[in-house]
């Protein structure tokens, strides 16, 4: 088969082209013809089709995501913002941190192990390409009904894939989420977050500058796997009866990625690199066009020099291949030898595939013939932009009107106790230890907090103790009830989780998982969620530094719950003063910060006990949220808090149970007066935390809260000497004032209920 050259395209302007099969719309194809002044060659068509896919071009989301750029809070810490591979923030002492979350949802349904593994691989390369050393990963996950047999296939594969790749790379897994909801049955969510650290001077950008500089492709060889993979995959919906199309999935090689990390950091630190870009979705098409588009000149590529795993690949396939573990660097000619020597040391293959010129064009040559000649911006940055119609669907009225008020609630002490035991074992609230024990959290020796703590915390500088904390959160049921508020609540929870650990929230990343943007109802959810998040970030002073959009998460025409996963990064000047979640010793006092209202719509209780979803999500007062965070950080800074844990899924009952199980020591707590005990225990009102203080700082702490006009209530005391009324277990959580009675829960009993669920389902 002969190659379609630029000269052929000029000579045969009317040759039919399979643009629709490649996912391009008629008008998109026409605009490519207009840009080029001729029909594209087949290689050009391949490039445009992958780069203009939803996944790479953000064509449906762009108009809304602009809000993150227009509503930027005053915040001096942002060094690199949206648009680069990942945002970078200043954390002081010359240190910078980059973090980003990305989705790998569709591939993970088709091939759970490899889909999830390559999800980790992809996000890690984004972080390296900024010049940072990756230091931790997190994995927010969503699965379907835990009792559905397919969930077992999906979950066990995804979890082993994340562990298999991350453990082998040597990155501690410091947190994540595991949520079950049948809306994810045919469409699990695998979001992967990576954090990297670097000195300011090490920040690198994806930019091809410097006339005559070489473009070097290094890492794994290019193969035929994943052709059209991520981008086409991520843009297509699965049929209701399962994955009818089974496009080829990429296989990850974490060992190669580990070599790539070490090799890349070594060439960067040796000053051998002018610009750098990872290869993810859209492979060489993406890397070359983005590098060229961000630079000021042009680029020429000799495509036949690319090292191949399969010699039969056509140039179109090479351009589109999404083979993993590859990177692209722009290097001055005088430094090529030194660059190659570092690659050799790490056993990484590298080859010069192109150079930077001043043509203003991206040209690609194949055995002496020109097969691509395009303006790089038109491929990389000036793709189509859609103003897709959006409208609040009518069913929102019904949904919001059918609140949880009429659901049967426990109304006496015995029922409360039984509800407590049931709730402790629901798949969403149960211990995630069975999963997280498959992840290495110790490697690198800088993990200060990891699961099941509220946020993961990493020591950045061993000398000074400077560190960062990260949390990811999203209650998608809230977003389903009100996407604007739901996104804000997700952000608030993540923000709070960072503050609870003693760190100052600094910056935000997000992974916006939604259904089809072609559905106006989904588009409305998306628009609302983005607006909600942008407004909240503006008010709280934490900029969005990057993120990812994943559309088409639906089975047939049923979309997943809108799931805007929000990651917040915070900084802590000395990790020694981190606040752990569990109380320590007898006599410590337990306080509740915040106000509990009858807010059970979208709660875990409504979901788990009644399979109910309706009403309005909890209200949110962002000023109060900020106030709470300041109290939590000040409490840590002044050494007043021995523990703190936020209140979210499962309410105060779950928070207390988690603290007790983590600590192993009993406590006596009393339900607040003036509120229904059931509501107090299981409502999911926002902006609350349970904190533990020592008697000697009690006055001081309470005074601080009162001065800040933040509601604080003493609710209990840590006590290892309590005795269960039912005998048995040695350490107990005793709850007074439950409809006039006292209940007690053995901590061992709670623990065994909590720890039994996941192994029973998936072990």
């Amino acid at each position, binding site marked *: 088969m002969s190659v379609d050259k630029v000269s052929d395209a000029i000579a045969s302007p009317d040759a039919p082209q399979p643009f629709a099969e490649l996912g391009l719309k008629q008008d998109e194809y026409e605009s490519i013809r207009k840009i080029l002044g001729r029909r594209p060659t087949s290689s050009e068509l391949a490039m445009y089709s992958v780069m203009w896919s939803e996944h790479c071009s953000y064509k449906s989301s762009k108009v809304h995501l602009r809000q993150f750029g227009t509503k930027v809070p005053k915040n001096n810490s942002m060094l690199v913002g949206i648009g680069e591979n990942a945002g970078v923030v200043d954390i002081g002492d010359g240190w910078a941190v980059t973090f980003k979350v990305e989705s790998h949802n569709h591939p993970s349904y088709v091939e759970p192990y490899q889909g999830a593994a390559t999800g980790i691989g992809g996000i890690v390369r984004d972080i390296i390409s900024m010049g940072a050393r990756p230091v931790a990963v997190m994995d927010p996950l969503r699965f379907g009904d835990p009792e559905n047999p397919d969930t077992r296939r999906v979950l066990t594969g995804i979890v082993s894939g994340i562990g298999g790749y991350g453990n082998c790379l040597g990155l501690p897994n410091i947190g994540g989420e595991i949520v079950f909801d049948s809306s994810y049955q045919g469409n699990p969510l695998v979001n992967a977050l990576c954090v990297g650290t670097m000195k300011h001077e090490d920040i690198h950008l994806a930019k091809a500058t410097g006339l005559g500089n070489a473009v070097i492709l290094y890492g794994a060889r290019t193969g035929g*796997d994943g052709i059209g993979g991520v981008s086409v995959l991520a843009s297509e919906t699965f049929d209701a009866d399962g994955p009818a199309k089974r496009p080829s999935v990429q296989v990850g090689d974490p060992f190669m990625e580990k070599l790539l990390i070490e090799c890349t950091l070594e060439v960067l630190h040796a000053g051998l690199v002018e610009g750098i870009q990872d290869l993810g979705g859209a492979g060489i098409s993406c890397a070359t066009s983005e590098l060229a588009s961000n630079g000021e000149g042009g680029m020429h590529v000799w495509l036949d020099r690319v090292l191949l795993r*399969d010699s039969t690949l056509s140039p179109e396939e090479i351009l589109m291949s999404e083979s993993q573990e590859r990177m692209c660097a722009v290097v001055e000619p005088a430094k090529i030898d030194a660059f190659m020597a570092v690659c050799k040391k790490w056993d990484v293959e590298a080859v010069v595939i192109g150079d930077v010129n001043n043509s203003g064009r991206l040209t690609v040559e194949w055995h002496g013939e020109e097969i691509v000649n395009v303006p790089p911006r038109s491929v990389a940055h000036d793709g189509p932009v859609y103003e897709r119609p959006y409208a609040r669907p009518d069913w929102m009225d019904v949904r919001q009107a059918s609140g949880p008020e009429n659901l049967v609630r426990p109304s006496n002490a015995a029922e409360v106790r039984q509800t407590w035991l049931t709730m402790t074992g629901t798949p969403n609230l149960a211990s995630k230890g069975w999963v997280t024990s498959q992840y290495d959290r110790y490697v690198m020796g800088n993990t200060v907090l990891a699961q099941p703590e509220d946020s993961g915390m990493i020591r950045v500088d061993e000398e000074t103790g400077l560190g960062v904390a990260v949390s990811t959160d999203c209650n998608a049921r809230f977003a389903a009830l009100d996407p604007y508020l739901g996104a804000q609540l997700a952000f608030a929870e993540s923000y709070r989780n960072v503050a609870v650990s003693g760190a100052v929230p600094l910056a935000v990343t997000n992974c916006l998982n939604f259904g089809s943007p072609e559905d106006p109802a989904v588009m409305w959810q998306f628009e609302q969620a983005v607006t909600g998040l942008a407004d909240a970030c503006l008010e709280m002073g934490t900029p969005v530094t990057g993120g990812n959009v994943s559309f088409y998460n639906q089975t047939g025409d049923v979309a997943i719950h809108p799931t805007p996963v929000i990651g917040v990064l915070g900084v802590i000047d000395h990790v020694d003063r981190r606040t752990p979640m569990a109380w320590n010793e007898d006599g410590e006092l337990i306080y509740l910060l915040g106000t509990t209202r009858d807010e059970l719509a979208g709660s875990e209780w409504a979901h788990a006990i009644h399979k109910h979803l309706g009403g309005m999500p909890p209200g949110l007062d962002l000023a109060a949220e900020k106030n709470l965070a300041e109290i939590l950080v000040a409490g840590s800074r002044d050494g007043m808090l021995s523990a703190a844990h936020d209140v979210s899924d499962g309410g105060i009952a779950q928070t207390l149970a988690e603290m007790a199980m983590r600590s192993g020591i009993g406590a006596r707590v009393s339900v607040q007066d003036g509120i229904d005990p059931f509501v107090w225990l299981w409502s999911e009102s926002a902006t609350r935390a349970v904190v533990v203080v020592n008697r000697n700082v009690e006055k001081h702490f309470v005074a601080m809260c009162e001065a800040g006009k933040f509601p604080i209530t003493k609710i209990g005391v840590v006590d290892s000497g309590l005795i269960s009324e039912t005998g048995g277990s040695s350490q107990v959580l005793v709850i007074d004032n439950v409809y006039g009675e006292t209940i007690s829960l053995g901590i061992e009993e709670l623990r065994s209920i909590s720890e039994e669920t996941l192994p029973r389902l998936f072990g």
Partner: protein
Amino acid sequence: MATVVVNVALKPEILDPQGRAVLGALGRLGLTGVADVRQGKQFVLTIDGEVDDAKLAQINEIAATLLSNPVIEDFTVEVRP
């Protein structure tokens, strides 16, 4: 008693990091002229009684769903009497 051997191998177009690692090691150990190494899995099933057509069909089905993932792997089933 019969023995059924199911061999599962990555499809030829799929990257095989394990085979690649072995290939690299072979070179270092001085075995030259090896063009490629692929690493697969072998399941040896010991079956009570005879393997009739129905049983074989069942084993083929299991090889296609449990023992391999058709998205990335091929398999063969062989009955050894």
